[in-house]
């Protein structure tokens, strides 16, 4: 599963522009992956300029919402 490290995120929207499934939602300083839509393609992980997104083989355990 794709995991967002909320404390590192700059909320820039780069991943949202790339996501082929429209599975990432971004508000002012709040970002989340819509799990039902995410296909784990990892393109967001590759494009994140500041290494905020991670592919987590064991599934994301933490709450993905960053506030």
């Amino acid at each position, binding site marked *: 599963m794709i995991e967002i490290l909320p404390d590192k995120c700059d909320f820039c929207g780069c991943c949202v522009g790339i996501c082929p499934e429209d599975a990432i939602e971004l508000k002012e300083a709040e970002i989340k992956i819509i799990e039902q839509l995410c296909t784990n393609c990892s393109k967001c992980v590759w494009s994140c*300029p500041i290494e905020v997104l991670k592919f987590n083989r064991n599934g994301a355990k933490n709450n993905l919402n960053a506030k």
Partner: protein
Amino acid sequence: MQNEYDIIVVGAGPAGTMAARFAAEMGVSVLVLEKDRDVGYPVRCGEAVSKAGIEEFIDSDPKFIASVINKFSFIAPDDTEIIIPLEEEGYVLERRIFDYELAKSASEAGAGFLTRAYVNGLLFDNGRVSGVKFEHQGEQKSLTAKIVIAADGVESRVGRWAGLKTHIDFRDMESAVQITAAGINDINNDTCYFYFGKEYAPEGYFWVFPKGNHSANIGLGVGGNIGKKKSALSFLNDFMRKKYPQASVLTTIAGGVPCTPTLNKIVAPGIMLVGDAARQVNPLSGGGIASGMIGGSIAGTVAAESIKQHKPDYILEYEKKWHDRLGKRHLIFNRIKEGIYNFSDEKFNDIAHAVSKVPVENRSIGKVFKTALFNKPSLLVDVAKVFLF
């Protein structure tokens, strides 16, 4: 606030505010919805722009100009530096103030603004976009509009909701990171610096843009294929360790720059896309301030005309007008980019050595490109087109 507007603009960056201003100037009702709490902040931009690019829309004002640029410095992988005097002045802006001034000019023309308004859906009427749903101060609301203009940036989702294909291939998105740093003592305040090569920013470039008082915007963009192996942040950290280990970092920002030609479709019934949302960035330079304002101004004008003439389909004209003004040039810029980005470090070095033999007073950006293109003759035709048309 009314319940319905002729035009709702989503996003208060330069493209959105110019769409709003040009429409409002023609007497239609316009509301701009901005998701952030401030217009113009946070800034996600290198802030460099040509003087002519902004003066088409707003008078130059020292309050939003951090430095006046009249030289470019290109630094090759082997550290050969070539200085190019510019035929036309440029600026490094204070976007935070610049965007605010643009918004004020739109407001003076009659456009309304609402910040912290997060658009999260569209209204439809018989398959036609007829308004927006949005969250504001914890409440879900909606507003109807004859035309929605989506200026919601690189992350644009508004277009997707209307069925326009806006997501871009990860290889075409330049992943960018930039710091504003103080204590950068070896730069000239009238020069923008560009570093090329594998070490600095493969398939992209590294920039140092002066902001006065020994501070600068320092950043880079790399294509997704590179970012997959090494992040933009990691390139930046390497550069700072090597070049400016003592600098104070005042701000760090991340961002995506859609370096592609404009989307094929930037209009659908009741909706128009402008700026980064429409992928109107110059794909070669990654610059999007001036081109976004141009896209916004065309869209705003066409939208207002469509409403005043009661001809909803007239908004289709926007695609053609954009294409004629800049879209076609961006196609060519994109081909040049694809040629140049694949240059090896040796090639960049060769170009720098060749240009350094030309006396400074005879150098121009055009000459640098021509020199670059002797290394890639198939691109010469494209370059000829840029300079001839």
